[in-house]
């Protein structure tokens, strides 16, 4: 059984904010930009401590992405923060041309991703951003699962030379990864070994997959659980090694089933080791208003949905 005890709940965006604050103190080249969402992105402390290195661009995300690209010319490491919707779909061409194609060392920091943004509804709940970003050549795509992992990832991506899309969320969620972890881009984390089925999850769904694994174990099913924080480049080894043992896999993500982690895994399996796969993801729809928990249940993204899909896959 996975230990599901945790000391506190915290939002992943605070992990980003605290990671950024740490970078402000340790790396003089780190600069930050924000499009009128400083408090939502928890960037206020960085701004307070480094006013000269913080750029409030207003509600103008296209200009922000271009400015971030320009700031790299002269050696700065820009962290551009806004909601995931406005960091991707709204400015796709700016990210594509000025950042990705131009090979600029910009960190696109995207909060309030997915359904768990909650009550604001579908206009703000982007479920397509992982797909959009992973299709860009050279773009690293990361979706973190809790406060500690988000903080560690924020610090780690400053050391990575190249564009990064860092995706995190709004609600307070259990803090279950260690505070002192070292974050390795592209390296999945084995949470529990198992023999019957592989559960691979990213972002907020990692916690749900852990709950699901315990429920499956109660029913005599041994689930291997993998925390995939980096969707691109994908840790192919950890996934292949697991499915060679289990022969079945459930991918879990807070994203449209088209274009997300699940599809990346499908491509990998098709090329290297075909096994049966089931998708815990949004079924090609937009979201709606509601509490995060209500939405995760309605759209089939919670632990019970994972259990159900896993059992179905094994029958």
């Amino acid at each position: 059984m996975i230990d599901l005890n945790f000391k506190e709940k915290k939002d992943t965006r605070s992990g980003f904010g605290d990671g950024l604050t740490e970078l402000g103190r340790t790396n003089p080249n780190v600069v930050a930009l924000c499009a009128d969402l400083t408090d939502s992105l928890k960037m206020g402390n960085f701004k307070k401590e480094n006013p000269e290195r913080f750029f409030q661009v207003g509600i103008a995300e296209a200009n922000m992405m271009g400015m971030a690209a320009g700031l790299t010319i002269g050696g700065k490491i820009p962290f551009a923060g806004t909601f995931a919707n406005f960091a991707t779909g709204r400015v796709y061409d700016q990210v594509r041309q000025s950042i990705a194609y131009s090979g600029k060392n910009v960190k696109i920091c995207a909060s309030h991703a997915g359904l768990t943004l909650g009550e604001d509804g579908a206009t703000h709940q982007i479920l397509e951003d992982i797909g959009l970003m992973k299709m860009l050549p050279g773009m690293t795509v990361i979706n973190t699962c809790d406060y500690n992992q988000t903080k560690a990832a924020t610090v780690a991506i400053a050391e990575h030379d190249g564009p990064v899309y860092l995706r995190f969320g709004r609600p307070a969620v259990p803090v279950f990864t260690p505070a002192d972890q070292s974050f390795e881009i592209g390296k999945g984390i084995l949470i529990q070994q198992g023999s019957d089925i592989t559960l691979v999850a990213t972002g907020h769904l990692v916690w749900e997959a852990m709950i699901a694994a315990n429920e499956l174990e109660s029913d005599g099913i041994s689930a291997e659980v993998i925390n995939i924080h980096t969707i691109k480049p994908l840790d192919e080894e950890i996934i292949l090694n697991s499915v060679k043992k289990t022969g079945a896999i459930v991918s879990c993500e807070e994203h449209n089933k088209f274009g997300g982690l699940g599809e990346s895994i499908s491509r990998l399996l098709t090329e290297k080791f075909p096994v049966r796969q089931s998708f815990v993801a949004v079924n090609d729809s937009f979201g709606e208003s509601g509490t995060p928990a209500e939405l995760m249940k309605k759209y089939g993204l919670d632990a019970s949905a994972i259990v159900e899909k896993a059992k179905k896959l094994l029958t």
Partner: protein
Amino acid sequence: MTIEQLQTHVQQCRRDILRMVHAVNSGHPGGSLGCAEFFTALYGRIMDYSTQFTMDGIGEDLFFLSNGHISPVYYSTLARFGFFPVEELNTFRKLNSRLQGHPTTHEELPGVRIATGSLGQGLSVAIGAALAKKLNRDSKLVYVLQGDGELNEGQNWEAFMYASAYKVDNLITTIDYNGRQIDGDTKDVLDTTDLYAKLKAFGWTVLEEKEGNHLNRVIDILEKAQSETGKGKPVAILLHTEMGNGVDFMMGTHAWHGKAPNDEQLAIALKQNPETDLKDY
């Protein structure tokens, strides 16, 4: 470099543009020809730069071409002023070339610091680079060229607003004010109306030069723009140019925005711009 030498550069640049687009039967000669004086003034007289190219350009003036489709004039200028061999102009728009249809950093062509082509993005990048210079206590300037048709794109206006609000005063943008875009005259496609008043209202220092194809005047207006930097406002130059300048049948129309001359047309155009001491590539 004397004015006469610079004028020779302008003429050779026009020949390069015409021959480059003719060779691949594609590319954008109209706007390129209209900016030959501007590029020559910038790289021959105005900017302080090293041809030992580094991406960061610390201690150098930087230039960004926002309307990337006029790559022929950009490439010719970079080659003629020593960033890469002029023979390489021969590879323009061909497979495996560093001289892509639109400028890019992807093939690591010396002199280019950002990919442009999808319009409206250059000023934002230039602002970022100007801010990096301020953080680095680097007193050099950042230059950018934007098309007037390109100003249809909303991102420009986000950038205009930002640059004045945050006093990015180490930045000089030049608007290639030729009054034409692909579908016709800008006043018919999407009228910019009073651009001078618009930029003034956006808080910029605005200069205007009606003779944007007069080399001396282009140099003068750029020098005046330099003297206006460091005063708390970004600086814009409205540079009235003639699309297709230097080739009689390409002037007075938008038809040569993105069309290459055929063999016969090339011969006529080159006759109007004889080969110089700089020699064809």
